[in-house]
């Protein structure tokens, strides 16, 4: 089926999220829509999928104008979507999720689960998936969940399949497999829309590329275009893909973690006997596919996890067992991976958020009373220092853009006297400008002699920042390798295996990281 969008326009108040977007996707081709966060890609797809009504423009399938009142109608017309955040119900089984919305039923609305199981098995067999129809979604790894999403779309005979940022949660190997699946689908005649901001993937799989920026189509590119060309088209200026930084000058070991184990509330060992150390003035990146224990590891460092075993020492003082308050007071700065959930109080003003983790003592509080005068001065200073774009320090943080929100978090954490900085997914969902800013500040912190831990699922980010890289898989550290280790190796480690041909030293956690850092860079 051929999909055509003609002059799609979607406004939110005074903001135009999609400005007269036109594009065509032929059957049997993979059409990439490339653009950075906030370019309007997701809005466009929500319009296509009937989740949002378009203000102007038309959607055509095989040259017939469509009017979708909701996703149900879009699906009936043959559009399927693999959502960035999976639209699966965690407590339902695979079969139940696949059948939801178009259930086959018997007498009196009784569910015919066998029919759904059969359908799941059929499609699985066709594409070589190994999916158990009776498994609960919440028990499945994300890679498999994504396949369930694909099965869900295919079970409704989707002729146009939209993949919305599908690789964010996958290992490089899983990503490759997804590419293979996409090609398979394409060869079977499906029209595929592939939304992403990752240049590498675009060049790998796209038949055609449409680049979006600030709600507009800014051009088409061929898959043979270079990374730099695509990036400048996407961002609107030439961008430096790497962070300028000097070689690390690591000092003494500052943070030492030995035998750290974290158990979650249902008894799973989410972090399993992890040991590593971070030296003053170096960045240790923790790489790995999302959900392999990185979150719990950083939370354990901060004292946020309940069942923690093992030792954590900062500058020789034990951190384990301390309350969050005491950990913060020991000089740990923390940038949580979900800033809206854990980092900021959306309804609070910028000034209030800047004092959020210092609500107990001077200079923000004296004698139990808030020092509003000091807070205002402080906030004004930080807003200008960290280039937070806002009208006033009293603006609610929730109304700021993601980049500016992250700058507020960064300003708060870096304005304390730090002995360790833990940054979890510090640039998730940010635009290129903010990413550059955040990276610069993190490197600056390192250069001032602070030991830094950066958790990232993005290999680009790991590559840009890391002096050493620890790869996590299923709660354990697979190995610690020097910065600059090639993607192939990291990818294999992210799948839980030791690299066959390790370049650099053997992944030994107690390796002499100082030298290996420089060696990695040279290689």
């Amino acid at each position, binding site marked *: 089926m051929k999909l055509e969008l003609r002059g799609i326009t979607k406004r939110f108040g005074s903001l135009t999220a999609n400005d007269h977007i036109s594009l065509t996707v032929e059957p049997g081709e993979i059409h990439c829509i490339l653009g950075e966060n906030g370019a309007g890609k997701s809005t466009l797809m929500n319009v296509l999928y009937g989740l949002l009504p378009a203000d102007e423009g038309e959607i055509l399938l095989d040259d017939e104008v469509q009017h979708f009142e909701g996703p149900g109608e879009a699906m009936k017309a043959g559009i399927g979507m693999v959502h960035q955040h999976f639209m699966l119900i965690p407590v339902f089984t695979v079969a139940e999720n696949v059948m939801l919305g178009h259930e086959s039923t018997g007498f009196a609305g009784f569910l015919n689960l066998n029919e759904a199981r059969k359908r799941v098995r059929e499609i699985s067999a066709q594409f070589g998936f190994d999916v158990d129809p009776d498994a609960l979604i919440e028990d499945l790894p994300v890679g498999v969940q994504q396949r369930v999403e694909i099965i869900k779309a295919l079970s409704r005979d989707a002729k146009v399949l939209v993949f919305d940022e599908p690789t964010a949660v996958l290992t490089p190997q899983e990503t490759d497999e997804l590419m293979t699946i996409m090609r398979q689908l394409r060869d079977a005649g499906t029209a595929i829309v592939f939304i992403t901001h990752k240049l590498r993937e675009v060049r790998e799989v796209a038949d055609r590329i449409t680049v979006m920026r600030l709600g507009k189509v800014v051009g088409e590119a061929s898959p043979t275009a270079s990374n730099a060309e695509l990036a400048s088209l996407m961002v609107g200026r030439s961008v430096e893909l790497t962070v300028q930084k000097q070689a690390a000058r690591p000092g003494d070991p500052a943070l030492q973690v030995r035998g750290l184990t974290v158990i979650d509330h249902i008894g799973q060992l989410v972090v399993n006997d992890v040991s590593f150390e971070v030296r003053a003035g170096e960045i240790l990146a923790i790489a790995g596919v999302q959900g392999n224990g990185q979150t719990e590891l950083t939370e354990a460092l901060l004292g946020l996890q309940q069942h923690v075993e093992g030792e954590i020492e900062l500058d020789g003082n034990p951190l384990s067992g301390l309350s969050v308050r005491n950990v913060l007071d020991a000089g740990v700065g923390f940038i949580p991976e979900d800033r809206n959930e854990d980092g900021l109080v959306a309804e609070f003003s910028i000034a209030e958020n800047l004092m959020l983790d210092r*609500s107990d003592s001077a200079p923000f509080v004296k004698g139990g009373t808030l020092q509003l005068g000091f807070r205002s001065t402080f906030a004004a200073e930080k807003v200008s220092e960290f280039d937070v774009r806002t009208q006033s320090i009293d603006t609610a943080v929730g109304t700021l853009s993601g980049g500016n929100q992250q700058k507020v978090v960064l300003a708060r954490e870096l304005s304390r006297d730090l002995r360790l900085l833990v940054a979890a997914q510090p640039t998730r969902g940010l635009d290129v400008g903010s990413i550059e800013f955040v990276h610069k500040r993190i490197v600056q912190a390192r250069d001032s002699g602070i030991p830094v831990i950066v958790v990232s699922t993005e290999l680009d980010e790991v590559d840009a920042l890391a002096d050493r890289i620890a790869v996590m898989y299923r709660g354990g550290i697979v190995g610690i390798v020097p910065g600059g280790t090639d993607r192939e190796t990291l990818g294999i480690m992210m799948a839980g295996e030791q690299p066959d041909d390790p370049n650099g030293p053997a992944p030994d956690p107690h390796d002499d990281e100082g030298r290996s850092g420089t060696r990695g860079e040279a290689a």
Partner: protein
Amino acid sequence: MSDDSGAQASAAETGTEAAGSADVALETGSQVPPDDPNDNRWNDALRQILGGSFVISILAVVLALIVGAILIAVTDPGVQQAAGYFFSRPGDTFQAIWNVVSGAYSSLFQGAIYNFGRPTFSAGIRPFTDTLTYATPLIVAGLGVGLGFRTGLFNIGGQGQMLIAAAFCGWIGWSFDLPPVLHLIVAIVAGFVGGAIWAGIAGVLKARTGAHEVIVTIMLNWIAFYLISYLLRTPGALQEHGTNNPKSPAILPNAILPPLFGPQYQLHWGFVISIAATIVVWWLLERSSLGFKFRAVGENPNAARVAGISVKSVIIWALVISGGLVGLAAVDQVLGTTTGGFSSGIDAGIGFDAITVALLGRSRPIGIFVAGVLFGAFKAGGFLMQAANNIPIDIVLVVQSLIVLFIAAPPLVRAIFRLPTPGSKPRTKTPAPTATAEEATAK
């Protein structure tokens, strides 16, 4: 007659005005919409005022009073009779409706604000002092519930906290013979402590085991009710000597809250405590470190926890203070209005009214104060309405709950009065495109 009801309505309006405007200030202060400067500024301002919460609050009160009037009219025998021959003489029906509704609301006003039937000002103003007397416990209890709301906690256990507090302060009040001022202070503190302990149980259970405070406080209401009922009928516990009634002894004179404007008015010093409590709670929430933590936990407990705030101790402290404030409402009852000894109905529904007061006051101390006075007026006037016009005071419950429902749903009120939506642009904005807007201005 018509003047009275008009004045009554406007009194109610000024009542909510402060509550509304406090909120307006807060809202406009916190979210300045990055509007297109080309837009007509006056048009926008008008939009803001017409659709803002200030007007909504007034309209909510008006709407609720209209519904109340309809209820009064349709259940009135005179109206029903006139409606029986509506098509021959429709005027009679309207006349009957007018008579009963204006009569009722004029009683409501005269019972709450000023009685024109009295010869002197000091006698005429008496209803207003009654209003303030009824408002006194509503304000402190409302502050308690509102403080809970700001911390993200729903203290629905006002009844139980008041009963325990009544037992505490009453026991001090009749068992000991202390010097004048000291006795009163000790009794008041005991009341605060009693409420604090009872709410603290819910706080500790929530903090330690995650038990939902709504369930626990509701259950504690019943436990307190039966506990106090038992103690009140048990000789040697709270029961008055030499009686078989389930009733406590009278409070000793030294522990009674003295009248504020002399003995001819009921209003007692508890009202001054309510004013003081309003100021203290305002300071606590807006200016203190503890209040900052309360609000942080209320808005986003996860972020608060990550920022080193002990959510558990905040939950416990918030409920303790909340319960203590609700306990002060019992102090007002036991040491102020019902000093001759109390029964297990001493809470008089204040614990539940406090929820509506806190909601109407939008959990802001000043708003709660004004809302408390408004509800106090409804109560005072409702009694006169019941006595003079034979209209059950329960109509007040209906009007109060409708006010809260309408205020909670501004779009509904706007739809009924066909008002424009204020700041309709930011309202429909989704987070994702907001990011793009910011980036657009950044570049």
